[in-house]
């Protein structure tokens, strides 16, 4: 494979993508099926071109072709193969190509799934998805070409940034990109629904699984990023409200709101405009997030350097917003709600408030992130807000959201009576009160942790009540054993009970957040050899520095004995590494994980003459729940997404002649 193949494929892909847009729209105009089909075929061809380009770049990386600037900048001849593959998305140019790989692959799958379904929507879906692809292709062809050759070929690469040489970092960007790109599918279908005027819930049913797919990867991408920060960056925490983190968090919030509000549209035919707004907002935020991280508008501690991409992304975002909002306004008369809200005490209302709060949090995060820009416009001075802003705003909102998570699943539709409320909520509320008091008695804490844990137990009460009720009903009616009843219950109502498992995961993440923000301890000490200090029930003894040298990296470790009482339970060795190429020191934290907490040590600095060392010690209680919550979230979402057996699929589709491919939702 010669590297010349890459640019060639990208140019061809660009031409084909534009061709696909034109033929799809013209095909509708002329009512010509063959023209529309030609557009769809072009979309497959674009996918082929992008795959060829990506394969060419991977090949160049794997044979260390340092004639190419990108290869020389992000890999080296000694970089392990595992990270050489990761270098594909390690830098700006490669990451845009990688983005295209995901986008066009998803497009190809969507086209395949809908060969015989949604025929009226599909030309527009193709046009929208290819429109997005055209933008990214324009970027990689004209603005940031990944195959640019060096004037003088390098003899050796500069290697991947050592901070990226970590397993979380190999999976974090692909997850996040997949989540971002996946949101294009519901957006494309929404636009198609607006364009055709077929505004029933077909577009929602057809994209429900794609939305969940995108949400799944967005959630995991955010979590992987947090875990990477925790294990690599060495400041003791996992979330700093950095603009880059916020960029990924905002579409997650609006996407979560969308997942909930579509249920109201499906069940009650309400909130049609709101759902459109949410899907437009979510997609726009994925583009905005990409813009934020690539433009240098906001100084972030981990943003890409300024690259001239900013104005292009901003223009694209403007086009997206103008076109989609114009379509929405044009179709407003058709989007009138067929039902009204019956009562404030109803499930509909709980869902609505859940939506408002999720969007409110997204707005607050947006405001805080953009505050330097906004204040510069208004007052001519850049003013930044730090993590305390985000925590102050989002902690109370998060708790209200937690409360609604306990209310939503069991409050009655339409109108809840007091008798119903008493019956349904007696158990969850009791669990909440008892749990809150028990936590206060056991672990102390403050007002925040008392409220948080009461609500956490309240939600656990709700979830357990739902599973219990369903299980008992099956046991009594069908005589099934408890585990079998539980299993069948979940399998038969995957959407509902899988959703509860996801709620359980969110509760676990709340436990981790409460634990680490309320009960966290930290200490910074500068100690001589043999000196001891204490943190959270542990006594730590600094035994001096150790050195180790390899051809690639030299290590300097602080040997720290960990004592619980008089007994030594562990030896931790937080280290400084000195990568020899590129010459860069990195900090490697040492963590002792137990069921209840993490002891987290960082070697801050040291004095070579006296061997005095500055050690940062953190005790992060309950952080293990972040990992368990992530795993549970993945498990729950998979339950929801898992396709039903053919026979059990919704009869509406089975009856329709178009449904030969099976259904999406």
């Amino acid at each position, binding site marked *: 494979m010669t590297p010349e193949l890459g640019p060639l494929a990208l140019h061809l892909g660009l031409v084909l993508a534009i061709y696909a847009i034109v033929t799809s729209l013209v095909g509708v105009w002329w009512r010509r099926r063959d023209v529309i089909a030609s557009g769809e075929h072009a979309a497959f061809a674009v996918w082929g071109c992008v795959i060829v380009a990506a394969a060419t770049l991977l090949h160049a990386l794997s044979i260390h072709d340092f004639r190419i600037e990108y290869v020389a900048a992000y890999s080296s001849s000694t970089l392990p193969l595992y990270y050489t593959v990761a270098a594909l998305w390690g830098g700006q140019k490669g990451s845009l190509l990688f983005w295209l790989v995901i986008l066009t692959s998803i497009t190809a799958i969507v086209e395949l799934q809908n060969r015989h379904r949604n025929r009226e929507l599909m030309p527009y879906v193709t046009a929208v998805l290819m429109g997005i692809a055209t933008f990214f292709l324009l970027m990689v062809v004209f603005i940031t070409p990944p195959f640019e050759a060096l004037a003088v070929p390098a003899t050796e690469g500069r290697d991947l*940034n050592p*901070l990226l040489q970590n397993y979380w970092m190999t999976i974090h960007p692909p997850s996040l990109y997949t989540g971002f790109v996946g949101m294009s599918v519901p957006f494309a279908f929404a636009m198609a629904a607006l364009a055709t005027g077929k505004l029933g819930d077909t577009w929602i049913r057809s994209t429900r699984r794609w939305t969940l797919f995108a949400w799944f990867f967005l959630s995991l991408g955010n979590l992987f990023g947090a875990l990477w920060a925790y294990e690599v960056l060495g*400041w003791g925490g996992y979330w700093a409200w950095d603009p880059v983190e916020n960029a990924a968090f905002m579409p997650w919030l609006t996407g979560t709101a969308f997942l909930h509000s579509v249920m109201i549209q499906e069940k009650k035919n309400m909130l049609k405009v709101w759902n459109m707004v949410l899907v437009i907002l979510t997609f726009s935020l994925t583009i905005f997030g990409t813009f934020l991280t690539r433009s240098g508008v906001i100084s972030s501690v*981990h943003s890409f350097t300024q690259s001239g991409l900013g104005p292009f992304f901003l223009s694209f975002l403007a086009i997206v917003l103008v076109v989609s909002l114009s379509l929405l306004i044009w179709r407003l008369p058709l989007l009138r709600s067929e039902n009204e809200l019956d009562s404030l005490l109803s499930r509909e209302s709980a869902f*609505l408030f859940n939506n408002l709060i999720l969007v*409110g949090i997204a707005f607050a995060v947006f405001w805080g992130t953009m505050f330097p820009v906004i204040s510069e416009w208004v007052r001519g001075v850049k003013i930044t807000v730090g993590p*305390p802003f985000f925590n102050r705003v989002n902690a109370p909102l998060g708790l209200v959201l937690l409360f609604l998570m306990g209310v939503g699943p069991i409050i009655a539709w339409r109108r809840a009576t007091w008798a119903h409320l008493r019956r349904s909520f007696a158990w969850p509320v009791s669990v909440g009160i008892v749990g809150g008091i028990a936590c206060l008695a056991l672990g102390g804490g403050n007002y925040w942790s008392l409220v948080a844990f009461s609500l956490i137990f309240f939600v656990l009460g709700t979830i357990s009540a739902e599973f219990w009720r369903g299980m008992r009903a099956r046991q009594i009616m069908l005589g099934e054993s408890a585990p079998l009843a539980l299993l069948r219950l979940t399998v038969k109502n995957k959407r509902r009970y899988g959703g509860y498992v996801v709620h359980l995961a969110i509760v676990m993440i709340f436990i981790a957040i409460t634990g680490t923000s309320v009960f966290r301890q930290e200490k910074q000490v500068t100690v001589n050899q043999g000196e001891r200090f204490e943190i959270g029930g542990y006594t730590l003894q600094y035994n001096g520095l150790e050195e180790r040298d390899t051809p690639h990296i030299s290590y300097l470790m602080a040997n720290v004995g960990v004592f619980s009482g008089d007994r030594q339970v562990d030896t931790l060795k937080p280290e400084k590494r000195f990568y020899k190429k590129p010459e860069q020191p990195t900090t490697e934290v040492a963590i002792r994980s137990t069921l209840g907490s993490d002891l987290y040590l960082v070697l*801050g*600095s040291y004095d070579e003459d006296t061997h005095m060392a500055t050690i940062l010690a953190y005790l992060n209680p309950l952080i293990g729940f972040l990992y368990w919550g992530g795993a549970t979230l993945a498990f729950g979402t998979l339950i929801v997404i898992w396709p039903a057996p053919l026979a059990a699929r919704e009869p509406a589709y089975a009856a329709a002649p178009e449904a030969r491919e099976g259904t999406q939702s």
Partner: protein
Amino acid sequence: MNRSVKFGIGACLLAAAIGYLMFAGVQTSSSYYFTVAEFMPRQHEMGGEPLRLAGRVHEGSLRKQTSAKGTEMNFTIGDFAGPNRVPVEGAIPVVYTGVVPDMFAEGRDVIVEGRYVDGVLQAHAVMTSCPSKYEAKPGEAAQAAAN
């Protein structure tokens, strides 16, 4: 009362609450952000204000001293040299006790957070931004918050 009006009132209350939280949040945790070049002409108005200052650590200006209190660092930061511009003259002295990110060194671009008191920036956090040499994505977020 009409139910949608009721809901509207609820939504307004919620929006007001969010607005209040945001207002209060900005009051408590905002700080000015300047580059050294922007800061030089206004340094006299900024005494005691919370600041984030972006600049480049001057070569040869770094002094370190480790004691039981930690490692105290003294250095000065100046303007960045852009590709098409001459850096603005001047140096802001910084004093910081604590841990700095791995990428911190003389000649590197940093963001220093602290208060400007009597002509010295009393820093409580030092962050490094990626030098352009690495275009890599997550640079250094080691927030050496010394509080």
